[in-house]
């Protein structure tokens, strides 16, 4: 990046300059991200679902009658037979319990985002701290953390979640925390540690030590910021796995939640419509495709971010 920049003055306050710098970096990274192409498609899908999620409360408080369109206790009195195929009133039809599918889809989108965000934030927090601490301190800290990570990695994810959710009441909050901890301590932590290892041997870390900086200063100021791009990438993968796990667990009927995409499929399945692909497509496709699309979108975004943050994958 040998881009020469117009000289910047410090006449206005420092933070504005810094904001400008941040914006510049963002622009550059965005450009690299756009070049990877597939990520843009993913991002578009994510934005689409975010809009759906945001639109739901608005629709509920304006045009949609709560008793009909509530995703959980609504009931479409207009239809004589449930599930009803798509109509003007119910663009995606109703489910076997007479609830509007579009409303369920939109409502669930929000909880999927919340779940993904929670899991991702937990992963990043734990992953960066574990990675940075293990790499910086080395020795016994490293050994303990990495042995723990080994165990986390060994945990067969879906199976652990199945066992846990069968045994204790698991809702979105617990699920997000569990996935976040498993991924943060396990895979993400290990990857971030190897990244952190390449950071802690850099001369600027030694320079900071020579300057008198303590471990906390170095980890927070030098190590963690250098891990953030990579952890952001793993955030995306965590979101994917969180949404996917939620869907699978709901599908198996193991979560104590009232509505989600997985539960929509479960409702379809337990009502016996899951194999009626042509006859009851509106029960099967919206939720299944949403899960697939959102999962793969986050994954694609993660992949594209990889091209941005991994200099070895950058194009000439």
């Amino acid at each position, binding site marked *: *990046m040998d881009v020469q*920049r117009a000289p910047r003055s410090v006449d206005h306050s420092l933070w504005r300059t*810094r904001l400008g710098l941040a914006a510049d970096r963002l622009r550059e990274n965005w450009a690299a991200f756009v070049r990877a192409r597939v990520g843009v498609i993913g991002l578009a899908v994510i934005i689409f679902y975010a809009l759906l999620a945001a639109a739901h409360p608005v629709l509920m408080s304006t045009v949609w009658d709560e008793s009909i369109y509530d995703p959980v206790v609504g009931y479409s009195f207009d239809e004589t037979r449930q599930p009803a195929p798509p109509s003007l009133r119910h663009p995606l039809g109703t489910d076997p319990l007479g609830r509007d599918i579009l409303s369920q889809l939109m409502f669930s989108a929000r909880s999927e985002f919340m779940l993904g965000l929670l899991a991702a934030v937990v992963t990043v927090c734990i992953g960066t701290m574990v990675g940075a601490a293990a790499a910086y301190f080395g020795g016994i800290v490293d050994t303990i953390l990495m042995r723990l990570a080994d165990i986390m990695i060994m945990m067969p994810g879906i199976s652990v979640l199945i066992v846990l959710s069968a045994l204790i009441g698991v809702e979105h909050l617990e699920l997000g925390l569990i996935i976040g901890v498993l991924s943060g301590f396990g895979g993400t932590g290990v990857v971030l540690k190897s990244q952190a290892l390449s950071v802690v041997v850099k*001369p*600027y870390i030694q*320079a*900071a030590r*020579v*300057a*008198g900086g303590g471990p906390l200063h170095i980890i927070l100021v030098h190590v963690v910021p250098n891990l953030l791009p990579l952890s952001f990438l793993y955030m995306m993968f965590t979101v994917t796995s969180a949404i996917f796990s939620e869907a699978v667990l709901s599908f198996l009927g193991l979560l104590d939640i009232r509505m989600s995409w997985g539960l929509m499929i479960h409702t379809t399945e337990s009502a016996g419509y899951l194999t009626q692909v042509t006859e009851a497509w509106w029960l099967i496709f919206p939720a299944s495709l949403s899960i697939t699309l959102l999962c793969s979108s986050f994954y694609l975004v993660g992949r594209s971010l990889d091209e941005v943050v991994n200099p070895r994958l950058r194009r000439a």
Partner: protein
Amino acid sequence: MQTDGSRPLLRVDGLSKRFPVSPVWYRRSNSFVHAVDGVSFEVARGESFGLVGESGCGKTTTGKLLVRLMDPTCGRIVFDDGDEGPVDVSTLKGKPLKRFRRKAQMIFQDPYESMNPRRTVFDTIVEPLKVQRMGSHLDRLDRVLRMLGLVGLTPARTFLFRYPHELSGGQRQRVAIARAMVIEPSFVVADEPISMLDVSVRAGVMRLMEDLAARLEIGYLYITHDLAAARHTCSRIAVMYLGKIVEIGETETVLQSPKHPYTQALLSAVPVPDPTVTRPPVRIRGGVSPSLDPPARCRFYDRCPIADDFCRDNEHPPLQDKSSGQMASCYRV
């Protein structure tokens, strides 16, 4: 340049560093790399002292020991810049160590790696001030700007908020120098500061370091593999081989009349930028042998063109005065 009567800025005494080889957590290692092995020298105030040798000879480790980036296995490092009494740096901890860090800084070899790519020039230079809680925010900005001017990055304001990737190698090394100098240390370890720079900017950086040393009265430990560069920078040099100092003395004396066979070989191997000159062939074999558990005899024995049975059967030779302050560790000289 060591003047009688005044105490040296830094006195290193029997400094050693050993690394255990592939330590297994349940067993204590009994195999060691002797990276630095009983090194002793002195650096006077404002003096530029050179440490030369091939890669793997322990010169960088010595530098890092002096600024306590590593803890020495044994030996003493007595530091005395006149402000406070002499302190033994080798065992400092906590607050005193942090205070010592105001006085001793380091410049690293690789200008591309010595700046955090996510931090601006300002962030990088101000870091020591911030960490040491020196001055107010404005004071610091002021000092950084002054420092930028001093290292020749002008106009200083235009450089403040550049990122490392927006700077050339030479500019980065100037920033690194500014970072080391901004808290006005009295001792700086410069680890190959120019070896990765383009030829056309090397001279500038060398000149800058000389100027700053003179202006701020800084003692340098100048680590380099490049004898020519050392000749231009240092008043005294020590030649290291496998963790040992094999020759030490005034730069010109050492380079003009090397005593130790290793120094001689080193000198004769340096290519001469003059097509008309034909150098005599180097008489020793290539390749430094590893310093893993070296036998007790002279470290240079394996490659020495003049070694005899005495060298094989005796300890590593001590440094002996060979001619007016020029010391070498060789039995055969």
